[in-house]
């Protein structure tokens, strides 16, 4: 039953993704490799769409993955079931945990062992995102094979330009959607 599997895959993501939307990427990456519901290329597209539309990134990505996965069963109706299933899967652990935490708030925030756990969790979560980022970068820069002949030269040039622009002080505050739109235009013009 694909919808049950979808629910539990996102339940797991919601339970272990710590530190915001980007933290779900390593889990989606694992999902792409182990389930075959979508490809690594699809995933990069989903991240871009999720960043450029309203709503929390993590929620948007869950909806997107659920929609695409469901659409392969029997078109639009199952796509919508998939979108709802994945999204509910993602938020269920958070809702349960928060409702429990909310009942004994004070003990929770000042809990020393919890803060100690986060001392290890923060760098680990960042490490996971970095590894996923490198994987995305490798698929983008070497789309066909890991060789010099297959190197995406136009992509590399665009990446360097974007890295520079997004770290200029005056442009840093601009919404990512600006850079995504500009990259789409560059992609069309230079046939990337």
């Amino acid at each position, binding site marked *: 039953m694909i919808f049950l599997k979808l629910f539990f895959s996102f339940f*797991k993501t919601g339970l272990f*993704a710590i*530190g*915001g939307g*980007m933290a779900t990427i*390593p*889990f989606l990456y*694992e999902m792409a490799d182990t389930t075959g519901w979508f490809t690594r290329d699809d995933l*990069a*597209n989903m991240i*871009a769409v999720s*960043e450029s*539309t309203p*709503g*929390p*990134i*993590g*929620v*948007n990505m869950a*909806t997107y993955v659920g*929609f*695409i996965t469901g*659409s392969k069963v029997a078109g639009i109706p199952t*796509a919508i079931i998939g*979108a709802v299933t994945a999204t509910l899967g993602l*938020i269920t*652990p*958070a*809702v349960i*945990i*928060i*409702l429990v*935490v*909310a009942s004994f*708030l004070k003990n929770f*925030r000042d809990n020393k*062992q*919890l*803060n*100690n*756990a986060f*001392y*290890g*969790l923060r760098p*680990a*979560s*960042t*490490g*996971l995102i*970095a*590894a996923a980022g490198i*994987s995305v*970068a490798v698929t983008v820069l070497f789309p066909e094979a890991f060789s010099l002949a297959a190197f995406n030269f136009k992509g590399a040039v665009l*990446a360097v330009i*974007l890295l520079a622009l*997004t770290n200029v002080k005056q442009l840093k505050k601009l919404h990512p959607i600006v850079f*995504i739109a500009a990259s789409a*235009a560059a*992609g069309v013009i230079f046939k*990337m």
Partner: protein
Amino acid sequence: MNVIKIYLKLFATFAKIGAMTFGGGYAMLPILQREIVEKQKWASEEELMDYFAIGQCTPGIIAVNTATFIGQKTKGVLGGISATLGLVFPSLIIISMLAGVIEAFSHIAWVQHAFGGIRVCVCVLIINAVIKLLKKAIIDKFTFVIFVAVAVAAYFTSLSPVIFVIVAAVIGIIIKNIGGKKA
């Protein structure tokens, strides 16, 4: 005001917040301040910051955690669920429509070129996110070692991220407790 009306109000308010937030997390904070503290008066400024801090240090999406917390504090368990469903509602509608449209046009050459450019941008956005997170996460040599070890191991093995998260939490507790005894 009758009870159902309050649940609907929570749903509608968080649906509005979901529809107005691009990116989630910190991008949501100013909108939460306006809607929750100033307009609805469901929480004070200090309470909101507390809820947000808890949302950050519990598993799951920060925006979802914060919505559940505010809903729960306002009208109990059902309040928490109403607020959370409200928050994800716009995403469900907008993304489902967009995903359908993108799928339908994805075979067109210039759409593929556009996504070719966009994928490059996504890499850069992830790199920038990592740099930003690193500033908070790496505070000494232990946290640096954890970051490098996890990044390398996650890239070269196919171990589930779940394992890294659990091990890192345990290591954090062990290091901090040993260090605490020394000091």
